[in-house]
């Protein structure tokens, strides 16, 4: 954390990401897993609805409305993950210290490996589907592409949320 290189934006984001309010939402590993699971479920629902929106344009209105409604809890879940990781992925490098920068590199590398596997699965899946039915390939290609793009975008958050550890208690020092 190089405070001299931090802008006012960095400082305000640092305060926001370290705001202790709502700490109970991510205080334990189980709660952090729940937040990541909720975020993943909401992301899957939004992508699924987008696919439905794309594939059946006649019923587009209701799915667009549901997506708009789902975005609100999605943002709340994203905020919980960001707070649990103390802005590991949101803050700029000057606002992170050496451990956080190393942790961010680890998280991004792990997320990259996972999304590479997902991309491979999507490509293989599309080849298999396309081999069986040429029209199906055209139908599902965009959905698969959007799904993997979204997974690529949110995977670092999920990995960081699952990797976050419990807050060390202040009185640990007294017991050592």
């Amino acid at each position: 954390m190089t405070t001299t290189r931090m802008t006012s934006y960095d400082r305000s984001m640092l305060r926001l990401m370290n705001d202790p309010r709502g700490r109970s939402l991510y205080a334990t590993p189980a709660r952090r897993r729940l937040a990541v699971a909720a975020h993943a479920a909401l992301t899957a629902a939004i992508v699924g609805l987008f696919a439905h929106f794309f594939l059946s344009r006649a019923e587009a209105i209701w799915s667009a409305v549901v997506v708009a409604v789902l975005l609100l809890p999605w943002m709340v879940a994203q905020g919980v993950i960001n707070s649990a990781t103390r802005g590991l992925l949101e803050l700029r490098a000057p606002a992170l210290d050496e451990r956080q920068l190393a942790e961010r590199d680890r998280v991004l590398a792990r997320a990259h490996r996972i999304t590479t596997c997902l991309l491979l699965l999507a490509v293989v899946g599309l080849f298999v589907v396309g081999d069986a039915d040429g029209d199906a390939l055209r139908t599902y290609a965009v959905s698969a592409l959007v799904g993997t793009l979204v997974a690529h975008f949110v995977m670092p958050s999920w990995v960081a949320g699952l990797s976050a550890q419990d807050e060390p208690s202040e009185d640990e020092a007294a017991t050592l």
Partner: protein
Amino acid sequence: MSEQVHNRLAVVRAERKVSRQSLAEAVGAHYQTIGYIERGQYNPSLDLALKIAKFFGLPVEALFSLEPFRPLTDEVYGRKQP
């Protein structure tokens, strides 16, 4: 590379009555990083270790060591190790 660096940061910090937050602010680190160092879950860089040692006005080897530290009371009262 997961060599364990032992430290007595928690003991010294408690003895000096310094909070993690104020130590972190003084050395330009996140307060969680101080906690991770104390728990042995993170080995600080030489730069950070020197900054922490300077904050307490101690030589770096008083806080960090490749060998486990003897209890402070043993060092102060000179009890021999078995």
